[in-house]
């Protein structure tokens, strides 16, 4: 093996210094202990427990009996599950697209604003600074047919004659929740993009302008590539968070009307509330392959820089 001869063998002293029982290593393990304990008891163990439970028929009160992949099989044929999965895809796709467009657009606006930029940045941060549960209760109010601002406004300007139950009708429910989620989440994107835009060296723009590039070209060829790593990271962090969304749906529609807005976390929660523990565990775990594929995809694109 060629590599073996190229790397010199460690001297005995070096082995002692870097070995597992060396002072540095022991210190390292000691410092890692608290975090790793948390990770073991509240991440690794629950995860294995969940995988095991998903392979059983556990409900409240009975003992779990191993049933192999039956839970997964019955989920795949369960129309409620496939609806929830489809809703999750629709929800996450539109929400993330909206956050990206709105976040980037506002970042560009703020980037060009030279006066009181800090003030405007603080204003833009408001939806993200407020607790999620407050944001979604407020939107539940705004969409309400009796006292909500949206209906009052639309009727006052004569666009509609009678109130629309935005969260109570199948056609409107999902778009309404998507819009509220975008409102709540875009500031994270805007702030991160703004900071990234401000880090792009100004000389690049000046040189391009001298060469005759117009605003669009400068944006496409300097700004976008310049903030590409930040776009990818924000995209990854935000999407993992959004796939996870529970309160966005639960507080506004509780999955309704007639399960029209049920996404996977809500589906799993309803299963747990019905004490279908084995099956809910399987449903929750179905998030894993998707999240993993997505994360690996993003990390690969990042490495290409």
């Amino acid at each position, binding site marked *: 093996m060629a590599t073996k001869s190229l790397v010199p063998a460690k001297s005995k002293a070096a082995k002692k210094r870097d070995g597992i029982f060396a002072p540095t*290593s022991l210190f390292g393990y000691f410092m*890692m202990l608290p975090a790793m304990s948390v990770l073991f008891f509240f991440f690794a163990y629950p995860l294995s427990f*969940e995988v095991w439970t998903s392979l059983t028929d556990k409900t409240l009160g009975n003992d779990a009996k191993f049933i192999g992949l039956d839970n997964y099989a019955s989920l795949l044929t369960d129309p409620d599950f496939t609806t929830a999965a489809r809703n999750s895809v629709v929800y996450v796709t539109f929400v993330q697209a909206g956050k990206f467009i709105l976040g980037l657009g506002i970042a560009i606006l703020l980037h060009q604003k030279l006066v009181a930029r800090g003030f405007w940045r603080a204003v833009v941060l*408001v939806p993200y*600074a407020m607790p*999620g549960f407050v944001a979604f*209760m*407020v939107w539940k109010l705004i969409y309400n047919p009796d*006292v909500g601002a949206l209906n009052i406004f639309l009727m006052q300007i004569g666009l509609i004659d009678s109130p629309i139950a935005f969260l109570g009708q199948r056609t409107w429910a999902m778009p309404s929740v998507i819009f509220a989620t975008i*409102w709540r989440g875009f500031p994270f994107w805007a702030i991160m993009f703004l900071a990234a835009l401000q880090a792009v060296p100004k000389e690049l723009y000046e040189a391009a302008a001298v060469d005759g590039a117009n605003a669009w070209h400068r944006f496409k060829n300097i700004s976008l590539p310049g903030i590409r790593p930040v776009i990818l990271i924000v995209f990854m962090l935000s999407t993992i968070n959004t796939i996870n969304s529970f309160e966005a749906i639960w507080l506004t529609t509780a999955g309704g009307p007639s399960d029209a807005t049920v996404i996977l976390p809500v589906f799993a929660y309803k299963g747990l509330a019905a004490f279908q523990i084995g099956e809910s565990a399987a449903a929750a775990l179905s998030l894993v392959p998707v999240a993993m594929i997505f994360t690996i995809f993003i990390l690969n694109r990042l490495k290409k820089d």
Partner: protein
Amino acid sequence: MLVIVAIFVLFPVYYMITLSLRSQSSLWSKATLLPVDSNLDNYRAAFANTDFKRALLNSVIVCGTATAIAVLFSVMAAYSLTILKFKGRDTLGRIIIIAFLTPGALLFIPLAVIMANIGLSNSLQGLILVYLSFMVPLGTYLLIGFFRSLPAELEEAARIDGASRMQALWMVLLPLVAPGLVSVAIITFTGAYNELLYSLVINISPEMRTVPVAILNLSVADEVPWGRTMAFSSIAALPVMALYFAGQRFVVEGLQTGSVKG
């Protein structure tokens, strides 16, 4: 243009406040976007409501304690993963990142069952432990970025000058990553304070509820007392929003440093 953005961003807050100042009968009789019939009854009701005050206390205790623990654990872990060298370091680092990227909706079921099994269900201590499960990976991830942004030779230089590793950490490195500590404290505290799912599933009785669950429970069978809910929500939002705006600089810097250099 920015004025349109401001309206888009601030209108819901405006509406929340105007409605929090109106009674239920006012809401039913007058449909308007303007602030009318303003009074502080809903806020008085909030301060008189023992369940709500209890929930506020619970949230502060749980989130404050969890944040203190999480910052400590995260500093220790991030320091080890960036400054120290030991066997298995990279593997442990990867495990932390995987835990960080794991959505909470994945683990709420086993965590609820485990908490019930060890008798910590429906308790503040149990909720603190459960919150640590996402706060520690998050904090560690952010602090790794901060530690990595320090000059590489700094720690060695301190030790050559005679400091022990703990002294080097405490007297040289920590002061330099102090903005990172503030940022982690704010981000993890608000993450825990805003958290709904774990709290809903694990702390069930009214005395053990946290603020998000208390506000959810103001509504009974699809009937939402809007004025009251908005008043309670405004009060609930204050601590977190104050933190965010006071620490805005830290939060933005923390997210950037953690994400781009981490």
